[in-house]
């Protein structure tokens, strides 16, 4: 068993609007001189620290937890899971 850090990024699915990101882009970033920026998306990140036998099972376990406890709504959001050695 080893300790892993698992990062879960929760964001709206592609094609679903993101009012918060759009507001930050239009009302903050583009109001300055940062015209090189074309898109901002907001997301939420959860950082899990988990004891598991390997990276793969750490990822699977965290995915299961997120699904089971409705940590995100699969209708609206997608999640990306990254695993790092601690």
């Amino acid at each position, binding site marked *: 068993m080893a300790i892993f850090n698992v990062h879960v990024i929760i964001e*709206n699915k592609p*094609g*679903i*609007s*993101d*009012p918060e990101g759009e*507001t930050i882009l*239009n009302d903050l970033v583009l109001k300055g001189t940062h015209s090189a920026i074309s898109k901002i998306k907001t997301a939420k990140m959860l950082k899990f620290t988990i004891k598991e036998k390997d990276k793969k099972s750490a990822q699977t376990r965290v995915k299961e937890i997120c699904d089971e406890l*409705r940590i995100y*709504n699969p*209708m*609206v959001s997608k999640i990306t899971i990254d695993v790092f050695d601690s």
Partner: protein
Amino acid sequence: MSLEPQELDDLTSKIGRKPTSTELQIVAAEWSEHCSYKSSKKHLKMLPMKGPLVISEKGYDSGVLDVGDGYVITAHIESHNHPSAVEPYGGAATGVGGVIRDILSAGTRPIAIFDGLRFGDIEKDLQARWLFKNAVTGIADYGNCLGIPTIGGEVEFDECYSNYALVDVAAIGFGKKKNLIKNHAKKGDLVVLLGGSTGRDGIGGSQFASDSLESENRSAVQIPDPFIEKLIIEAILEARNQNLIHAMKDLGGGGLSCAVSETADALSIGIEMDVNKVHTRESDMNPDEIMVSESQERMLIVTNNDKLKKLDKICKKFRITCSVIGHVTSNNMMHVKKGKKTCANLPTDVVANATLLDRPSKKPAYLKNIEKEKKLKPILDYSKMMMKFISSPNIASKIWVYGQYDHEVGIRTVVKPGMDSSVLRLDNGKFLAAKIDGNPKHCYINPREGAIGCFEEACRNVVCTGAKPIGMLDHLQFGNPENPEIFWTFLESLKGLTDFAKYFEIPCVGGKVSLYNETPSGPIKPTPIIGILGLIDKTPLYSQKITTGNCLVIIGDTKNEMGGSEYFEYIHKFVGGKCPVVNFQESKTNMNIVLDLIRKDLLKTVHDCSKGGLAVAVSEICMTHQIGCNVSLEKVPGPKLDVDRILFSESHSRYLLVLEKKNTKKLEELLKKSKASYKMIGEFGGENIRFNKENKHVIDLRVDKAQKTWFNSLRELVVHG
């Protein structure tokens, strides 16, 4: 896409050729139950819709009532059940957005929001708790961001909503009569789409709402953006003030398809539009998607070339996008193009008017024996039972819900939520009371009497503030109408509402029908929701502090009507019995005398008896005012009944009045003259709520303890499980 084979034949024969794919999409959206009311429209005509105060104009999405001195109020009710069952936060929030744009489209400023929420059993069902929590947050976030107070509503839990949610939202608008949009258009006028961009969210939402929510086909999700909505409200009202709007419609179910075809049909014009002109979120959207997308926060406006410049300027000021997507023609056709290519070219009356159906109806089998009561287990300790009862989710205080809503923004709310109904101050010195009510438990047992009961309860609630009911909104929510038994319950409820509305001369100013409310375990109970608007000419009854020695008087008889009561269903887990029936004559007498007594300034506070019966209603007064009361059960008027029936029967037309002793003589004089049934049944004082019979305390509760339980139990349940 949900066009039935015979509907496809119907369309083909009406237009004399095979429809294109875009045409199919447009018609499928517009002919869905959600947009066309094809099952219900024939029957809805029975409701009285005219009245001395009602202003009707073609193409209005909301009801308009004249409140005098050149002012009008507008009102509308909508539901967002299917989307909320899938994504409660966004579904509930976009529901609020939709109904607010209906208010806006008449040219009035939205001033209040109401919400009626129904979920499964949150004591056991985690999913129901998740839905409840997020729907409330969604409404709170959206309403609070817009600066519109959420001033009332109701919350109910019942197993029939497991895995589902009923989210009903009503809104009220206020404005000057001369500023109402008089929907009109002439050839050459421009058609403008204003607001948020069109994306792939919510594609096919209205058809989705017209299918049963079975399992995985849950793709129609809409994302709320209250900040754009707020900008749209301000931009539209400014454009209205400058007279720039000829006609207006909000984009709701069915998106552009419905907005364009219905506007054209209502105004007897044609509209030619180009999908390339629609501002989209993604560049690769095809015409079909653009026409049926239900992206939120969009309005369709008809204006002319001269006014467009000014409209553009306003939109720039508020930083919202507006694009000219087409123009008005005189040929009554809805012509959709992509550049030069025609995608759809249909007669607007064909699109906007689906063939109405005559659905068969049949009395449901389950009703045959429903009124039979089973033998109940005797209650050994009513005080203990009562503590459990007041902490149950349906009876407990809903402060956890309305505490999250800003109910005072706009400084109109003079009577706040938590009372029978909230009251708003209007600019002409009058006051508006409003309330929504439903009771699926009663409606399940008797769809007709149950629906009438909801109507009367909503009336009672506004009457308690001193308001005379002037208009009604109905929202009829049922299961699959193709099932004759369900359709029968729909018809019965509708007939009941019609009879009551006619007798009391309360016109129906708006409404909605939501069918196909089915969950994996079957249809929901019949759930008509009634909203009542009441007008107060002088001052509302502001509830005053109750002090020792004040008297408690009940108006109305308590009858043996236990069917569908909380007591039967929550305490005894029994569904059945006879549900309460409203006696129209008695109802009118009681309503009039209560209004008279309030006008004569004889009362400190008035509360109606409803869910949980007399026991709960008296306790609510005591807990709100933190004072005890001694009630004699043998004095309660009505037929002779067992104590549990006197305590918990949910008979209608009953009001509890609190007054000072010195006013009792005058009160009795007036009550005698009115021929209403009444009795002085109790006196306030001390620290205990006591219901007594033959010198024994049947129920004896410490007010402070009861109050704490009643106040906190819902929050405890939601937050800590």
